[in-house]
């Protein structure tokens, strides 16, 4: 017997909610199948299993906040995947659970000094934080906690807390989570920055020819060869592809390229395209379409949100010339791509108009140095001068 625990979908995540079970007790499920929908600050995420198994029993109560690492369902499988741990106690749905909801609050204490409250309402700090995030008035909640206080369960089950649909997210909650991640990054990761202008003309000409005979739904976008180049450069320069944890850097065997995707209403997610270095340009385009669609409409998988080994952030064709990103911990680099501009360039003593894109690197100085970063950026530049190689996968 083993359990599936509430996963972390990012360095900022402390808890999540199971809002829907996608399986039944006694059901046999295959690796990759979705077990439950988890509500997080990034919206609804599909939680999948990583090996064939059978569902034994649900542990988590629907719509209750479950701290990251706590079990949510019991499974019976062939072997321990390492994803879960055996636990003898089931999760408790009482007040101590809220301790992990917001680490900055002392949650075993109900504030009774009524002068601290505008409406003289007793509430646990976790309930207050949740209410603030979801714009819920504590007056509208029942109070079933200790000494008649409003507790986390009261707020999360309040009629004012509207159940989330796929593709929806709470803007305040997401911005709060983003703020936590970028603040942690800037606090803990010594960033260094490099920039390189790359001639994209050959790639553009090649891509225009490639797309000429293709219908719009089969066309490859101009940033896709760039994605292929970045992924393959990461394969060749693994010091930019991995994670830094407990003062130690570990290379990742795979290049799982996180793609920063802007959502309407101030949202931002960065799901990963797995093994991006092995994809040809068509596979990369299909993967990009898939994660963009599911980022905006729901259906992102747990593995896509957890496993990025480096991130690429493109400001877009109507953005700015340059973008310097903030590294998502525990990653050690983020690549920024500006908009493509037509610029005069000296080539063999003559001035020609070329398509130029600025590519930046923000990297963790604990792991790499400027010279290494420069070689990495120049690898991207070299790869983009021979875009025809992106027709095949990386051999």
């Amino acid at each position, binding site marked *: 017997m083993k359990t599936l625990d509430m996963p972390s979908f990012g360095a900022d995540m402390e808890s999540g909610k199971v809002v829907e079970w996608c399986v039944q007790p006694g059901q046999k499920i295959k690796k990759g199948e979705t077990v439950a929908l988890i509500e997080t600050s990034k919206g609804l995420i599909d939680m999948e299993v990583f090996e064939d198994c059978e569902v034994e029993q649900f542990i988590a109560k629907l719509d209750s906040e479950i701290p990251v690492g706590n079990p949510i369902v019991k499974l019976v499988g062939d072997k321990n995947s390492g994803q879960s741990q055996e636990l003898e106690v089931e999760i408790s749905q009482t007040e101590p659970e809220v301790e992990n909801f917001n680490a900055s609050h002392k949650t075993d204490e109900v504030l009774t000094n009524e002068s601290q409250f505008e409406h003289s309402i007793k509430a646990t700090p976790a309930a207050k934080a949740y209410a603030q995030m979801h714009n819920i008035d504590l007056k509208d909640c029942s109070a079933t906690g200790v000494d008649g206080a409003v507790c986390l369960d009261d707020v999360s089950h309040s009629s004012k807390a509207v159940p989330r649909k796929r593709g929806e997210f709470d803007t305040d909650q997401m911005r709060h989570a983003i703020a936590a991640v970028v603040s942690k990054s800037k606090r803990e990761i010594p960033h260094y920055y490099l920039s390189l202008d790359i001639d994209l003309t050959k790639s553009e000409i090649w891509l*225009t020819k490639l*797309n*000429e005979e293709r*219908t*719009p*739904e089969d*066309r490859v*976008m*101009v*940033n896709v060869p760039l994605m292929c180049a970045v992924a393959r450069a990461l394969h060749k320069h693994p010091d930019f592809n991995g994670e830094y944890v407990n003062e130690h850097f570990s290379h990742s065997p795979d290049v799982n390229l996180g793609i920063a995707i*802007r959502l*309407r*209403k101030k949202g931002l997610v960065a799901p990963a395209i797995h093994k991006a270095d092995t994809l040809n340009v068509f596979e990369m385009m299909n993967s*990009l*379409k898939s994660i*963009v669609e599911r980022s905006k409409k729901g259906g992102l998988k747990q593995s896509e949100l957890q496993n990025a080994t480096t991130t690429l952030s493109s400001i*877009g*064709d*109507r953005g700015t010339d340059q973008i310097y990103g903030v590294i998502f911990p525990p990653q050690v680099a983020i690549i920024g791509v500006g908009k493509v501009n037509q610029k005069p360039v000296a080539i063999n003593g003559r001035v020609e108009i070329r398509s130029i894109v600025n590519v930046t690197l923000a990297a963790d100085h604990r792991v790499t140095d400027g010279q290494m970063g420069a070689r990495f950026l120049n690898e991207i530049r070299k790869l983009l001068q021979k875009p025809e190689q992106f027709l095949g996968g990386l051999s």
Partner: protein
Amino acid sequence: MNRFELEKVIKTAIVDIAPDVDPEELATDDDMRDELDLDSMDFLNIIVAVSKGSGVNIPEADYAQVLTLDAMCEYVESRLN
């Protein structure tokens, strides 16, 4: 396909991409990407919808000619007639 039907195809695609937007309030002679805050994938999805709905394939080289609702409709109408 007449102008009304063509606009319906485009507006349906817009609602799918930007459910928070009322396409009836879209200024027909303004760049859709700015008006609707569309990224390049969103714009491609509109091109795909128009292609499927009207049968007119807008090549990449002509994207700059179809940035407004009016321009897109006129472009497609001219290729249908």
